């Protein structure tokens, strides 16, 4: 039986070249993984190996490089399916990222919706899981319903029954907020959807980097996430969907690779999934990198990581809690959350704070985090956000807290 090694944060950090040898020799305390996570050596090696030994287009050529590229691309699909707990590899569609995945569903699944239908989103969503549905509403006359958030920055699931009706066709909600870090309890959402025959799409961009999933057990219909937040290159993402749904959905983009037959007189028929939704040359090396990243991630001790990240999150929350002028936007406890902490300090703009922290080598994200309705809900123009990954250590938190102390002296 395969056993995972107990989690060792320093050993984990040592696998990330950009952290062990930061650019310019300057200190780097990277607390912006919710925006983009760093790449472990295993991924860099896999991408380099692919590009130097198997670079070719996939599913087209018959020469040995083409065979090798196709095998690597499909092997990456298998790695993704394994990480998601999905037995049917063809249900995994490679896209350009979470945004592309959600737009695919909004266009293709959305093609079957009209003025008598409703889609439920929430105040907690990233614009990637809001704007595609707003565009659908404009295009097809679909009505958007919005689930509010609680004072703690969580989805207000008690309001679900009043917002879901027989007109509801889809619930498109986040698995974890990129602002508050709150993890969504998916069970009640699926139950509400099933009670009216609606489907469920979950935006997993923030949750997927924090350990393997069991999508069949979640009972959802679509899941979207990005490579660049899951220790893989950017330019690749995933849409998982149930075969019976994907097989009935019309293509989103047309082009090479997604057809069964193209005939100028008889018309065009389309390939089965996943090809139907992978028009054009896909992001091959990026997909290979994603496959390597998810195999690397799957081998980690995620229970140990959860404990480690919770302790670091607690240190951030305590540090911010000690600042009188600071306010955390999101849960202030450690239950039901990931290591994403957003906060506002009265009198210090998030961009000034993040710029100031950069001089200490501390990388934070400031702004509305592509979640303007949530910022409006909490009455702030923006926040500063610290976000964790397994490679973060106490040194990162020490640097953050030191920088915050200095910022308070400078700006207030």
């Amino acid at each position, binding site marked *: 039986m395969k056993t995972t090694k107990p989690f060792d944060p320093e050993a984990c950090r040592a696998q990330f070249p950009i952290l062990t040898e930061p650019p310019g020799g300057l200190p780097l305390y990277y607390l912006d993984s919710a925006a983009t996570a760093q790449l472990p050596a295993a991924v860099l090696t896999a991408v380099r190996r692919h590009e130097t030994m198997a670079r070719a287009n996939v599913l087209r050529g018959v020469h040995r490089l083409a065979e090798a590229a196709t095998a690597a691309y499909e092997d990456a699909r298998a790695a993704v399916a394994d990480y998601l707990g999905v037995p049917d590899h063809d249900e995994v569609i490679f896209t350009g990222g979470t945004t592309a995945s959600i737009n695919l569903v909004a266009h293709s699944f959305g093609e079957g919706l009209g003025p008598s239908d409703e889609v439920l989103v929430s105040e907690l969503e990233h614009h990637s899981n809001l704007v595609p549905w707003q565009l659908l509403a404009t295009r097809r006359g679909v009505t958007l319903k919005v689930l509010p958030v609680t004072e703690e920055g969580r989805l207000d699931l008690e309001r679900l029954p009043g917002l879901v009706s027989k007109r509801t066709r889809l619930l498109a909600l986040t698995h974890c907020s990129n602002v508050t870090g709150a993890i969504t309890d998916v069970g009640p959402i699926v139950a509400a959807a099933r009670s009216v025959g609606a489907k469920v799409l979950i935006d997993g961009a923030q949750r997927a980097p924090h350990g393997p999933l069991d999508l069949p057990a979640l009972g959802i219909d679509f899941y979207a996430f990005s490579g660049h937040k899951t220790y893989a290159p950017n330019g690749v993402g995933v849409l998982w969907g149930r075969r019976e749904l994907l097989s009935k959905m019309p293509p989103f983009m047309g082009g090479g690779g997604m057809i069964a037959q193209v005939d100028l007189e008889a018309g065009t028929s389309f390939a089965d999934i996943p090809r139907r939704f992978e028009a054009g040359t896909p992001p091959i090396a990026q997909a290979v990198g994603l496959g390597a990243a998810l195999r690397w991630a799957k081998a980690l001790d995620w229970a140990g990581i959860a404990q480690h990240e919770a302790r670091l999150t607690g240190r951030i929350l305590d540090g911010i809690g000690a600042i009188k002028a600071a306010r955390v936007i999101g849960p202030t406890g450690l239950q039901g959350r990931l290591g994403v902490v957003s906060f506002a300090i009265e009198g210090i*703009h*998030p961009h*000034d704070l993040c*710029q100031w922290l950069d001089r200490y080598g501390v990388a934070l994200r400031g*702004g509305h985090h592509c979640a303007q309705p949530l910022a409006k809900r909490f009455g702030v*123009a*923006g926040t500063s956000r610290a976000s964790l990954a397994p490679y973060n250590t106490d040194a990162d938190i020490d640097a953050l807290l030191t920088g915050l102390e200095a910022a308070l002296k400078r*700006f207030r």
Partner: protein
Amino acid sequence: MSDELYHEKLVERAQAGRAHGRLDHPDKTATLDNPLCGDRVTVDLKTANGKVLEAGHRTRGCLLCEAAAALIVAQAPGSSTESLAGLADAVRDFLQKGGPAPSGWGAVEEFAPVRAVKSRQDCVLLPFRALAEALR
């Protein structure tokens, strides 16, 4: 000039600018947003005979944005509206092309460290763009 982005003079200018508010009855006004960060600036003007008599602002923005708005409120009164029409372009050239500080606006030199930080140049420009919009 120090290459420190948040040098003393700039911080003081931004903080002093917070005491100014909007004008009660401006005859020219414009509000602009920065969609990337959500910042919002309103510039109000009272003008007569082709000159700015008084300026006010409301700034929901970063310190660089506040300092730029404060500079406009302090410096614009007394200037001809014609001379201010091209100010935003001149400040953009100062920040992005290494141009000189606009004539009569030597204090724009306080923003010289922003030349090296491309992601923050729009923060400085937003109030100047709002001024140009108000004068349009």
